[in-house]
Protein backbone atom coordinates (compact mmCIF):
# COMPACT_ATOMS: atom_id res chain seq x y z
CA UNK A 1 0.00 0.00 0.00
CA UNK A 2 1.49 3.32 -1.05
CA UNK A 3 0.94 5.94 1.60
CA UNK A 4 3.37 8.67 0.74
CA UNK A 5 1.46 11.10 2.94
CA UNK A 6 2.17 8.89 5.93
CA UNK A 7 5.88 8.90 5.15
CA UNK A 8 5.66 12.69 4.96
CA UNK A 9 3.97 12.78 8.35
CA UNK A 10 6.56 10.46 9.87
CA UNK A 11 9.41 12.68 8.66
CA UNK A 12 7.63 15.64 10.20
CA UNK A 13 6.88 13.88 13.49
CA UNK A 14 10.45 12.59 13.67
CA UNK A 15 11.85 16.13 13.44
CA UNK A 16 13.79 15.28 10.31
CA UNK A 17 15.13 18.38 8.59
CA UNK A 18 13.87 18.08 5.05
CA UNK A 19 12.11 19.81 2.20
CA UNK A 20 9.55 18.15 -0.07
CA UNK A 21 10.71 18.26 -3.69
CA UNK A 22 10.02 16.30 -6.87
CA UNK A 23 6.79 14.82 -8.15
CA UNK A 24 4.89 14.91 -4.87
CA UNK A 25 5.67 18.60 -4.47
CA UNK A 26 4.35 19.05 -8.02
CA UNK A 27 1.17 17.13 -7.11
CA UNK A 28 0.83 19.37 -4.07
CA UNK A 29 0.76 22.39 -6.42
CA UNK A 30 -1.83 20.76 -8.69
CA UNK A 31 0.13 18.66 -11.20
CA UNK A 32 -1.84 15.69 -12.54
CA UNK A 33 1.21 13.45 -12.91
CA UNK A 34 0.87 10.64 -10.40
CA UNK A 35 4.05 9.79 -8.55
CA UNK A 36 4.84 6.60 -6.70
CA UNK A 37 7.72 7.96 -4.67
CA UNK A 38 8.37 10.77 -2.26
CA UNK A 39 11.48 12.86 -2.93
CA UNK A 40 12.95 15.03 -0.24
CA UNK A 41 16.09 17.08 0.12
CA UNK A 42 17.46 16.45 3.58
CA UNK A 43 20.34 17.77 5.64
CA UNK A 44 22.93 15.01 5.44
CA UNK A 45 24.35 15.40 8.93
CA UNK A 46 24.86 12.43 11.21
CA UNK A 47 22.15 13.63 13.60
CA UNK A 48 19.56 14.22 10.90
CA UNK A 49 20.25 10.95 9.14
CA UNK A 50 19.88 9.07 12.44
CA UNK A 51 16.53 10.83 13.01
CA UNK A 52 15.48 9.75 9.53
CA UNK A 53 16.54 6.18 10.19
CA UNK A 54 14.67 6.09 13.50
CA UNK A 55 11.44 7.49 12.11
CA UNK A 56 11.14 4.82 9.40
CA UNK A 57 12.81 1.98 11.29
CA UNK A 58 9.65 -0.12 11.61
CA UNK A 59 8.82 0.22 7.91
CA UNK A 60 11.54 -2.28 6.92
CA UNK A 61 13.57 0.27 4.95
CA UNK A 62 16.09 -1.00 2.45
CA UNK A 63 18.46 0.44 -0.15
CA UNK A 64 16.21 -0.05 -3.16
CA UNK A 65 19.01 0.34 -5.72
CA UNK A 66 20.95 -2.63 -4.32
CA UNK A 67 20.13 -5.96 -5.93
CA UNK A 68 20.05 -7.72 -2.56
CA UNK A 69 17.71 -5.10 -1.08
CA UNK A 70 20.21 -4.32 1.62
CA UNK A 71 18.49 -3.16 4.84
CA UNK A 72 19.03 0.43 5.89
CA UNK A 73 21.69 0.48 8.56
CA UNK A 74 23.42 3.80 8.93
CA UNK A 75 26.91 3.38 10.29
CA UNK A 76 29.28 6.29 10.81
CA UNK A 77 31.42 4.97 7.99
CA UNK A 78 28.49 4.85 5.56
CA UNK A 79 27.10 8.22 6.57
CA UNK A 80 30.48 9.85 5.95
CA UNK A 81 30.24 8.96 2.26
CA UNK A 82 26.50 9.30 1.67
CA UNK A 83 25.18 11.72 -0.93
CA UNK A 84 21.74 10.23 -1.44
CA UNK A 85 19.49 7.56 0.04
CA UNK A 86 17.20 5.65 -2.30
CA UNK A 87 14.94 3.68 -0.01
CA UNK A 88 12.09 1.24 -0.29
CA UNK A 89 9.72 1.01 2.69
CA UNK A 90 6.46 -0.72 3.57
CA UNK A 91 4.67 2.54 2.76
CA UNK A 92 6.37 3.28 -0.56
CA UNK A 93 9.57 4.65 -2.00
CA UNK A 94 11.44 7.42 -0.22
CA UNK A 95 14.33 9.13 -1.98
CA UNK A 96 16.46 11.50 0.07
CA UNK A 97 18.87 13.79 -1.73
CA UNK A 98 21.58 16.05 -0.38
CA UNK A 99 21.60 18.16 -3.56
CA UNK A 100 18.93 19.08 -6.08
CA UNK A 101 19.57 19.59 -9.79
CA UNK A 102 19.39 23.23 -10.83
CA UNK A 103 19.30 24.46 -7.24
CA UNK A 104 22.14 23.13 -5.10
CA UNK A 105 22.57 21.76 -1.60
CA UNK A 106 20.25 21.74 1.40
CA UNK A 107 20.78 25.39 2.33
CA UNK A 108 20.07 26.58 -1.22
CA UNK A 109 16.98 24.38 -1.33
CA UNK A 110 15.71 25.75 1.98
CA UNK A 111 16.24 29.32 0.80
CA UNK A 112 13.86 28.56 -2.07
CA UNK A 113 11.26 26.72 0.03
CA UNK A 114 8.07 27.71 1.74
CA UNK A 115 6.38 26.36 4.87
CA UNK A 116 3.07 24.75 4.02
CA UNK A 117 0.35 23.57 6.38
CA UNK A 118 -0.78 19.95 6.43
CA UNK A 119 -3.25 18.25 8.78
CA UNK A 120 -0.35 16.96 10.90
CA UNK A 121 1.70 20.16 10.95
CA UNK A 122 3.95 22.28 8.77
CA UNK A 123 6.52 21.10 6.25
CA UNK A 124 8.86 22.88 3.91
CA UNK A 125 7.97 22.49 0.25
CA UNK A 126 10.11 23.68 -2.63
CA UNK A 127 8.60 26.86 -4.12
CA UNK A 128 6.83 26.34 -7.42
CA UNK A 129 9.33 28.48 -9.35
CA UNK A 130 12.24 26.48 -7.91
CA UNK A 131 10.44 23.24 -8.72
CA UNK A 132 10.10 24.40 -12.32
CA UNK A 133 13.83 25.22 -12.38
CA UNK A 134 14.80 21.76 -11.17
CA UNK A 135 12.39 20.00 -13.54
CA UNK A 136 13.90 21.93 -16.44
CA UNK A 137 17.42 21.20 -15.19
CA UNK A 138 16.69 17.46 -15.09
CA UNK A 139 15.29 17.84 -18.58
CA UNK A 140 13.63 14.48 -19.21
CA UNK A 141 10.54 14.47 -21.42
CA UNK A 142 8.31 13.82 -18.41
CA UNK A 143 9.98 16.48 -16.29
CA UNK A 144 9.49 19.04 -19.06
CA UNK A 145 5.79 18.18 -19.23
CA UNK A 146 5.46 18.55 -15.47
CA UNK A 147 7.30 21.88 -15.72
CA UNK A 148 4.83 23.02 -18.40
CA UNK A 149 1.92 22.22 -16.09
CA UNK A 150 3.58 23.99 -13.19
CA UNK A 151 4.20 27.09 -15.31
CA UNK A 152 0.52 27.15 -16.25
CA UNK A 153 -0.49 26.75 -12.59
CA UNK A 154 1.95 29.46 -11.51
CA UNK A 155 0.59 31.76 -14.21
CA UNK A 156 -2.95 31.19 -13.01
CA UNK A 157 -1.96 31.94 -9.40
CA UNK A 158 -0.27 35.17 -10.51
CA UNK A 159 -3.32 36.13 -12.58
CA UNK A 160 -5.65 35.52 -9.63
CA UNK A 161 -3.52 37.76 -7.42
CA UNK A 162 -3.81 40.68 -9.86
Amino acid at each position, binding site marked *: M*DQLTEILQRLHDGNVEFCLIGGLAAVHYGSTFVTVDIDVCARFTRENLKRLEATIANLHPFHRMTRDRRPLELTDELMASLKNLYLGTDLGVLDCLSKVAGIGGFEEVMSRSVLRCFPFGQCYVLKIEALIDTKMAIGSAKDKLVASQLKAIQ*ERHLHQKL
Partner: protein
Amino acid sequence: MIDAKTLAQINGQYDCPSEAGPAWREAMALGLDMSLVEYNLSLTPWERLLRNDQAAAFIRAAQNAERSQYGSTD
Protein backbone atom coordinates in the same frame (compact mmCIF):
# COMPACT_ATOMS: atom_id res chain seq x y z
CA MET B 1 -32.30 23.11 -26.52
CA ILE B 2 -28.60 22.64 -25.92
CA ASP B 3 -26.33 24.96 -27.87
CA ALA B 4 -23.46 23.54 -29.89
CA LYS B 5 -20.75 24.80 -27.53
CA THR B 6 -22.36 23.23 -24.47
CA LEU B 7 -22.94 20.00 -26.37
CA ALA B 8 -19.26 19.92 -27.36
CA GLN B 9 -18.29 20.39 -23.70
CA ILE B 10 -20.65 17.61 -22.65
CA ASN B 11 -18.87 15.44 -25.20
CA GLY B 12 -15.51 16.25 -23.63
CA GLN B 13 -14.21 19.29 -25.48
CA TYR B 14 -12.18 21.46 -23.14
CA ASP B 15 -13.34 25.05 -23.01
CA CYS B 16 -10.19 27.01 -22.39
CA PRO B 17 -10.88 29.93 -20.04
CA SER B 18 -10.78 33.24 -21.86
CA GLU B 19 -8.38 34.61 -19.28
CA ALA B 20 -5.89 31.74 -19.82
CA GLY B 21 -2.36 33.03 -20.31
CA PRO B 22 0.40 31.88 -22.64
CA ALA B 23 1.76 29.21 -20.28
CA TRP B 24 -1.70 27.67 -19.91
CA ARG B 25 -2.20 27.66 -23.68
CA GLU B 26 1.27 26.24 -24.25
CA ALA B 27 0.56 23.38 -21.85
CA MET B 28 -2.68 22.74 -23.72
CA ALA B 29 -0.83 22.71 -27.03
CA LEU B 30 1.54 20.07 -25.62
CA GLY B 31 -1.50 17.85 -25.18
CA LEU B 32 -1.82 18.15 -21.42
CA ASP B 33 -5.39 17.77 -20.18
CA MET B 34 -5.87 21.12 -18.50
CA SER B 35 -9.40 20.24 -17.41
CA LEU B 36 -7.74 17.81 -14.98
CA VAL B 37 -5.41 20.55 -13.79
CA GLU B 38 -8.43 22.77 -13.22
CA TYR B 39 -10.03 19.99 -11.22
CA ASN B 40 -6.88 19.53 -9.16
CA LEU B 41 -6.77 23.25 -8.46
CA SER B 42 -10.28 23.01 -7.03
CA LEU B 43 -8.90 20.69 -4.33
CA THR B 44 -6.77 21.60 -1.35
CA PRO B 45 -3.06 20.66 -1.51
CA TRP B 46 -3.68 17.93 1.07
CA GLU B 47 -6.57 16.49 -0.95
CA ARG B 48 -4.27 16.38 -3.97
CA LEU B 49 -1.69 14.38 -2.02
CA LEU B 50 -4.34 11.93 -0.79
CA ARG B 51 -5.62 11.41 -4.34
CA ASN B 52 -2.05 10.72 -5.44
CA ASP B 53 -1.78 8.12 -2.67
CA GLN B 54 -4.86 6.38 -4.01
CA ALA B 55 -3.57 6.45 -7.57
CA ALA B 56 -0.12 5.23 -6.51
CA ALA B 57 -1.68 2.37 -4.55
CA PHE B 58 -3.71 1.39 -7.60
CA ILE B 59 -0.61 1.43 -9.81
CA ARG B 60 1.29 -0.70 -7.30
CA ALA B 61 -1.58 -3.18 -7.05
CA ALA B 62 -1.71 -3.47 -10.83
CA GLN B 63 2.07 -4.03 -10.98
CA ASN B 64 1.86 -6.71 -8.30
CA ALA B 65 -1.00 -8.43 -10.11
CA GLU B 66 1.00 -8.43 -13.34
CA ARG B 67 4.06 -9.74 -11.54
CA SER B 68 2.10 -12.58 -9.95
CA GLN B 69 0.62 -13.51 -13.33
CA TYR B 70 3.66 -13.12 -15.58
CA GLY B 71 6.56 -13.20 -13.14
CA SER B 72 9.15 -10.60 -12.27
CA THR B 73 10.78 -8.61 -15.06
CA ASP B 74 13.92 -8.00 -12.97
